């Protein structure tokens, strides 16, 4: 996370540097109360995060047991500037997930984030995966459908789809 300096921080910072200048609008007792509340908010955030973790483990165990779990991730090749519009995913001919990308999501992918597009259950053995990718590279729109085969073993199956504008979708099995 790089250095981020906002106008608001400049204003606040200027107040800090001027020493005796009071923080805008809030008195000392208000500040104390806000600080106390802030600490309590942090504590409850921490509690809720712990609950979220436990809930996520429970959900995974209940809905996607390791014996049948398959997860499909989507990432963009580093440095690729394509505008990804949508991805549609089918497993064994059945549509399982589709995503239309917002600006924020696309930005996150361009920065190197990986989207977990689908989590589901399949039996052990061979499966067919079809990925339809739509977007724009340079001035041209493109729509590309790729077919893959993956093998589900007893352990959870992780499938990564690396998208590039200049080459076919690459499938990585984990």
């Amino acid at each position, binding site marked *: *996370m790089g*250095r981020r*300096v906002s106008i608001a921080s*400049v*204003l*606040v910072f*200027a107040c800090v*540097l*001027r*020493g005796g200048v009071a*923080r*805008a*609008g*809030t008195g000392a007792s*208000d*500040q104390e*109360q*806000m*600080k106390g*509340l*802030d*600490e309590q*908010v*942090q504590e*409850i*955030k*921490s509690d*809720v*995060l712990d*609950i*979220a*973790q*436990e*809930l*996520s483990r*429970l959900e995974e*165990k*209940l809905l996607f*047991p*390791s*014996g049948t779990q398959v*997860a499909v*991730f989507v990432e963009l090749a*580093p440095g690729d500037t394509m505008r990804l519009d949508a991805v549609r995913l089918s497993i064994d001919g059945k549509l399982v997930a589709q995503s239309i990308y917002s600006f*924020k*999501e696309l*930005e*996150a992918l361009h*920065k*190197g*984030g*990986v*989207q*977990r597009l689908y989590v589901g259950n399949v039996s*052990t053995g061979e499966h067919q995966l079809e990925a339809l990718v739509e977007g724009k590279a340079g001035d041209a729109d493109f729509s590309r459908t790729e077919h893959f085969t993956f093998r589900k073993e007893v*352990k*959870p199956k*992780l499938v*990564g789809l690396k998208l590039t504008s200049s080459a076919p979708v690459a499938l990585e099995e*984990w």
Partner: protein
Amino acid sequence: MRPGRRLLGVGVAACLAAQPGVCAELKDLYFGEALYHAYQGDFFDALQRLDTELAMYHGLDEPSRDTLTYHVGQAEFSVGDFELDYRMHLRAGRAIKAVLEGAVDEAVRNEAAYRLAKIHFEKGQLDDAVQALSRIQGKVPDAIRDDVEFLRANVDLAMGKPAEAVTVLQPLRSDANLSGFVAYNLGIALLEEGHADEAVRQLDAAGQLAASDDAGLAIRDKSNLVLGALLFESARYDDAKRSLDRVRLEGPFSNQALLRAGFAEAQAKQYDRALVPWTVLAEREPTDAAVQEAMLALPSAYASLNLHGRAAVLYGRALEQISGQLERVDASIESIRQGRFLTALVREEARQDEGWVIKLRNLPEAPETYYLMELMASHEFQTALHNYLDLEDLRAKLAGWKTGLDAFEDMIRLRGANYEPLLPEVDARFRDLDARMRLRLEQKKNVGKRLQAMLTAPRPEYLATAEERIDGERLTAIEKVAGADPAVARRVAHLRGVLTFRLRTEYHERLTAAFKDLEALNADLETLTKQYDDFVRARQAATQSYTGYDVTIQRLRRRVEDAAVGVDGLMARQGQMIETVAVHQLTARRDRLAAQQTEARYAVADSYDRAARAQAGEEAR
């Protein structure tokens, strides 16, 4: 339940101790997923993913064989970063301390110490900040070297040690990213140290630095504004005016600069020149404090120029506007007391934009925000507002989870209802098949042993076909019946000889065929074993799909309910705090407006009197 991962070779942790963002190639999908959420500003989800991932990583017997190994240093840092972004400074501090105390590279440790010091500084814990900075020793990453020194100077300044700050800041003046801030802070440090002339020179330089981004332009404006104020206080009005003129007309400090520029001219008795900035300012957003001051300053300048008629008109207009603003402030206070301010704050569209607080003022149903710009810019208020929004998110999440737990219980009940009647019959059939399978496996094992033994101690009779075995038994029976008849005995011996001859001559072929058959049986058995294992797993999964969740769900339900109560209570208090502070702020503005209103009333009357007297004087002449 950790998904299987691609195993790594040992010693490939190239990015183990790398700085965040340095390791280009992503090796761990779940870490990438956490980043995906963080890059979208969803720090709760990012933290949840990354905390889970790190907990699993540290729980592994051989974490070095996990794909997170490539990123673990970066991940530990990212946790601290995400926590900071999610305004969890206490936990962020702990996360960074953990990195600090771990067996990490010197550069990583120094970066962690820097981050920790920054957190302490932002929270006003200056002694802790100093202590954290003192842990920075040896190699400091290039990317943060200047930031470390800049922070050190800020801590010195905040602790009232301007001389130390000056010493630290002086060598930093050439850094491109920080130049505006360093130059400004150096000016302030010199000023606080008592070197007013040097401070003026420094701020003058800071006010003329090239800048392209908003923050750089803002700090340059701020330098010029502070310099203008300093020069004004030193009665150097022309210099003050020159400095204030450098402040951009569209920047955040523009109104203050215009107001002060007018005062600088007025102090120099240049009332006609004071009219220029004040006229511009008086036409701006009437809720701004500087604009309201200008509304009164402008007619006072006309009055000083003996243009009392014009002054009277402008005082009248100011009175009207100030009275209007007073009504607006009263309406705002009332609106806040009715809870509309908080309602406006949690609007979904307002959250989509970082500048949402500023844009709130455009909402017709949120008039209270007109007067809260200054307050909203304060760090405490921003924190309180964001906390309120975070609590609102948590409230929604907890409500969703509560429903989710109901659904889980329902699902478990349905699964139980489906499996319970089926499983006894399935188990009985399985036990039967299991017994038969074990028997056959035992038989196969014995056959295998026999064949192995026959390699060293040939037993041709073991390889006789069923027909040959029957023939042999028949010959034995004939021998018994025929007794001592030599012709029959000879004939039986001949036939037995043929049988034995065949068995012995075909022995090797038959043994090979038997081994091949056993081999073929192995393949079948392998398939059978796999089916058996699949069945056992499916059987286990069936039970596991509905048993053993009660305690976990009950505990989670209790935790969710407790947290929901806590969140509701905190939201109420946080909301009340925000409203109280906002009302305090508005009341202060109201008091100032009321004073200005009184001032304007007297000034209107006085100006009309003067104008009338002047007119009478002219008529008399």
